[in-house]
């Protein structure tokens, strides 16, 4: 091994080590034990119809078109990656994105609820991030409310003939933002003993929303980039789900 090669190796090893040691930071889901039992159950029950719809939607898609499992797995993996990256924001605290916009645009919001639930379970069990008691509430905000808003905005942009990529950007970014607004709402409903509901809501919103805005922009850009990649390489799949028009 030449000297130069050794130096490169040493440099790479150091970079790898420094990057591997991530600072401890917790990002945003409602934590274990922060909702009273009744609310935990209520949010959980509220999620069930969406999850059932998602399960049937996924099963139908896969029964009809087995090969779509690739795109579906990719949407799920995208949520996995994106929600594990905690990014510093302008407010001086860290938060992470949701990544649910992509799946919602491609497969519809109910399918994403299942994918989101998988990610939330992983984080609740292994990371103590979010929690099993609050999984209903977290599923509702991240895997149901966010994707539904993304999907709605995407469809609306199509109706209004907005540029497709701008539509995807808006859908992903606003879906991300809405997730955190819903979380703030869920917290304010429960925790307002020392003030009014409105005041508590504003307080929670000011903690979550400004942190999330730049991240929402990033999520929008990433989603557009991924869709551009898929448009180049996964045309057949995108045509089967009707994302690309058959014409031409």
């Amino acid at each position, binding site marked *: 091994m030449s000297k130069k090669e050794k130096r490169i190796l040493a440099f790479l090893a150091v970079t790898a080590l420094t990057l*591997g*040691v*991530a*600072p*401890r930071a*917790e*990002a*945003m889901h*409602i*934590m*274990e*034990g*922060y909702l*009273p*039992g009744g609310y935990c159950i209520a949010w959980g029950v509220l999620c069930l119809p969406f999850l059932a719809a998602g399960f049937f939607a996924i099963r139908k898609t896969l029964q009809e078109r087995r090969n779509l499992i*690739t795109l579906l*797995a*990719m949407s799920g*993996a995208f*949520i*996995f*990656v*994106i*929600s*594990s*990256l905690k*990014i*510093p924001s*302008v407010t*001086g*605290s*860290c*938060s992470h994105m949701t990544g649910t916009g992509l799946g919602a645009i491609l497969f519809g919001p109910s399918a994403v609820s299942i994918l989101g639930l998988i*990610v939330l379970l*992983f984080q609740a069990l*292994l*990371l*103590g*991030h979010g*929690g*099993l*008691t609050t999984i209903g509430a977290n599923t509702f905000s991240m895997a149901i409310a966010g994707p539904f808003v993304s999907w709605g905005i995407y469809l609306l942009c199509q109706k209004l003939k907005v540029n497709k990529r701008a539509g995807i950007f808006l859908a992903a970014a606003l879906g991300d933002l809405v997730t955190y607004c819903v979380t703030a709402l869920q*917290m304010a409903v429960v*925790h*307002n*003993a*020392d003030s009014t509901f409105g005041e*508590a809501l504003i*307080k929670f919103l000011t*903690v979550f929303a400004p942190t*999330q805005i*730049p991240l929402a*922009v*990033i999520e929008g850009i*990433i989603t557009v*980039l991924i869709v*551009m*990649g898929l448009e180049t*390489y*996964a045309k057949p799949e995108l045509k089967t789900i009707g994302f690309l028009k058959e014409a031409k």
Partner: protein
Amino acid sequence: MKKKVILGIVLICLIALIPLFALPDAEFGGSDDAGSQVVEEVDSSYEPWAAPVLETLLGRELPGEVESLFFCIQTGIGVGIIAFIMGRFVERKKWMKQEEGTARDSDR
């Protein structure tokens, strides 16, 4: 196309890194922690009634390094799946082009 992609990536990096340099005093803790502070402000009598499963099993907080290990596993699983599928797509496209080419040749 290529330019747009590069521009996008540069933008992402800027948005993510600028706060880090612009706010030298900030702690960059999670907004979760900020969330529990707000809970204390508006609902001071509330006591969390459950602790994360793994913490209960361990009887202590998950060590920071181990937590980052789990986060890396999460990222790794995701990136692995995306890279695998994307790689197949890219190869397939090449392959489909070739097939089209040979089909056209045999038509002649």
